[in-house]
């Protein structure tokens, strides 16, 4: 950041910089003064040498590609049902889905609207405590608490979004940080409602009778996996449809240049607050499932504290900012890294000294994960999905269809600019092709 530059301006520049990649940025380098170089020049040279296959968008080949991607995801999501997993393995999958949903909700806000929040643990916690309190104090069925959690988090999200209207960059992150800091304190303060530090126990979610599942631990895990999967799919499609719709374009416009967006007729205040609300609602839904998975609510749980908010952010960034599938990939990687580092002291291939060193040392996973994050900022600020896209582009390039119906062949010059939003990972994406400076 240039020193004389305000955080706001720097952030705007930053987004422009990122979007230079798409060639879709409205501002030119001379005007906004960011002066960034489009990176990835080597990739372009390499891609040219290899002559990747070009597939026009919307062609039959493209549909086949999409179908394969879709089928692979459906298979991955449903395969646990046919594999006789144990209850704890289902538990791991549920955790991945919950983290994925929370990161997805954050992605809507950070990735697509450009508002950085370090306070999503509060929404996660509000969702969790809504479910817990309604079940414990009022005897509600768990499934009816989900809509309440969503509504409440939406309302709180919009409320937080209102001061956020005047804030950008670090100032917004400070307000959300305050929220994250306050939530556990509020839970402790109102202990006659929330149980305070003792928490709320015995939050069981038994499968309904129509599923034919029993009340055993395994069957409850299967049911909760199904619920979490459903919510993940809902969350994914909410974000996907939002982003691909008119409001999504408005969100990206607000992110890249708020002033220009307002001039173009985007109602910036509505877009920002509603996005904040929806993001909070999805995060609250994740929290609701989380509390059922934990079967108890406790303010000391790391995911309700500021560290939780940071973990969501880190998962999102590792997976891929402004990528739809990124947060889920990030959650998976996070969980695997965690599991792997936990099992390290028992691995045979490690020398004994290393095993002794690692034994009884907590938090190796977080250390590794943070190092991975910082490393990724050097190698691929777009996260794992961004990295995969860039790699995939060496083999397959998707050529966007021009509005006139032509297109396809002369993709090397400019038509990439047509696609303004980073494409879904299913489309192997010409959208993120580095610009080549034009003829």
């Amino acid at each position, binding site marked *: *950041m*240039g*020193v*004389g*530059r*305000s*955080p*706001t*301006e*720097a*952030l705007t520049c*930053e*987004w422009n*910089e*990122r979007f230079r990649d798409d060639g879709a940025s409205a501002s030119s380098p001379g005007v906004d003064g960011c002066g*960034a170089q489009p990176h990835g020049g080597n990739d372009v040279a390499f891609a040219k040498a290899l002559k990747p296959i070009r597939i026009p968008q919307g062609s039959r080949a493209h549909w086949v590609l999409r179908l394969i991607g879709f089928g692979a995801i459906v298979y991955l999501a449903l395969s646990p049902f046919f594999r006789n997993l144990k209850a704890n393995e289902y538990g791991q999958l549920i955790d991945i889905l919950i983290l994925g949903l929370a990161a997805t909700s954050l992605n809507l806000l950070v990735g697509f609207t450009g508002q*950085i929040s*370090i306070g999503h643990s509060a929404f996660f916690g509000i969702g969790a405590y809504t479910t817990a309190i309604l079940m414990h104090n009022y005897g509600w069925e768990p499934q009816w608490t989900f809509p309440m959690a969503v509504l409440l988090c939406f309302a709180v999200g919009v409320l937080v979004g209102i*001061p956020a209207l*005047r*804030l950008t960059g*670090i*100032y917004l*992150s*400070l*307000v959300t*940080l*305050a*929220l994250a*800091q*306050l939530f556990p*304190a*509020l839970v*402790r*303060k109102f202990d006659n409602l929330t149980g305070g530090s003792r928490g709320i126990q015995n939050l069981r979610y038994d499968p309904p009778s129509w599923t034919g599942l029993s009340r055993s631990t395994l069957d409850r895990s299967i049911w909760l996996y199904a619920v979490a999967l459903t919510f993940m799919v809902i969350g994914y499609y909410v974000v996907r449809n939002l982003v691909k719709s008119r409001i999504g374009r408005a969100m990206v416009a607000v992110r890249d240049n708020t*002033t220009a967006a307002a001039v173009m007729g985007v109602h910036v205040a509505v877009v920002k607050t509603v996005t904040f609300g929806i993001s909070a609602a999805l995060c609250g839904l994740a929290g609701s499932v989380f509390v059922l998975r934990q079967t108890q609510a406790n303010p000391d749980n790391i995911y309700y504290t*500021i*560290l939780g908010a*940071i*973990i969501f*952010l*880190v998962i999102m*960034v590792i997976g891929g*900012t402004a990528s739809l599938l990124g947060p889920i990939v990030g959650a998976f990687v996070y969980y695997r890294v965690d599991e792997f580092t936990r099992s390290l002291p028992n691995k045979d291939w490690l020398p004994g000294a290393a095993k002794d060193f690692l034994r*009884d*040392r*907590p*938090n*190796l*996973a*977080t*250390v590794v*994960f*943070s*190092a991975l*994050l*910082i490393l990724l*900022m*050097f190698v691929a*600020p777009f996260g794992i999905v961004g990295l995969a896209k860039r790699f995939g582009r060496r083999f397959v390039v998707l050529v966007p269809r021009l509005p006139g119906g032509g297109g396809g062949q002369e993709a090397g010059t400019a038509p990439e600019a047509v696609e303004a939003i980073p494409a879904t990972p299913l489309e192997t994406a010409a959208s993120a092709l580095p610009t080549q400076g034009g003829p």
Partner: protein
Amino acid sequence: MQRFLQYLFDGLSSGAIYALIALGLVIVYRGTGHLNFAQGEMAMISAFMAWWLSSNWVPIWVAVGISMVFAFGLGAITEGLIIRPIGQRSQFAVGVAAIGLLLGLNALAPFAWKVTVPEAFGSLFPKKDTDFARIGGATWRYENIGVLICLLVVAALLFLLFQKTKLGLAMRAVASNADSAPLAGIKRGRVLMISWGLAAAVGAVGGGIVASLRGNVDPAMMLAIFFSATAAAMLGGFDSLIGAVVAGLALGVMENMVAGYLPDIIGQELKGSVSLLIILAVLLFRPSGLFGSRRVERV
């Protein structure tokens, strides 16, 4: 009156800690324009360093001094190896990396020292039950006075450094115009590394003091303090050293007053809400803080 004085004395002590961390934030912000999310955690890991040294028979003041040197190195290396290279390609990435650093350092301390429970930390100041001065009926503990003196000494040294030395002049030059400073022969990279190192070293004083007041070191000890310190830095205007000191002390006193006079509504649990309200008020009514320089933004 006695109550008022008591809250004032206690507040000044916690305010001095906020001010120390806020000073670090301001030094970094003036240098590279970043909010160093890891400032609190750098102080925490320095406190762990001091704890480790002091539990190996190093006198505690010497241990804190060595931990300051350690922190200086940590800060300088962070700037040189992480912040600057990443900043050259993306500012968003710098923010994320700093947050990653927060998380990583928070986990690294218990990992490196094999700590699972808070470990006892000696006291930097006289800490017997009888060690207090009685002023107007209120007790002012020597350790709280000591904290305040530490802050004033650090602030005075920083003032001298910035105003009276060549290095301070270079740092001010980089802060005021980062692009022109190198043209005047200032090694900007080195100055920025020193800024970050200095910020971390000031934070290490804060970390040592926090550990001393708590009587133990714990990975979570700086999280809430960092948050209040950020609020203080913001109130002071983010680029003003004197602002950070005044605002830090004021915030500490305000928190204690509010918590003390409204025990049922706010109380000790919701002390942090004072910081939140102050952040919001500053942002709404005086975005450049009390002492900060106004920034004009070109659209």
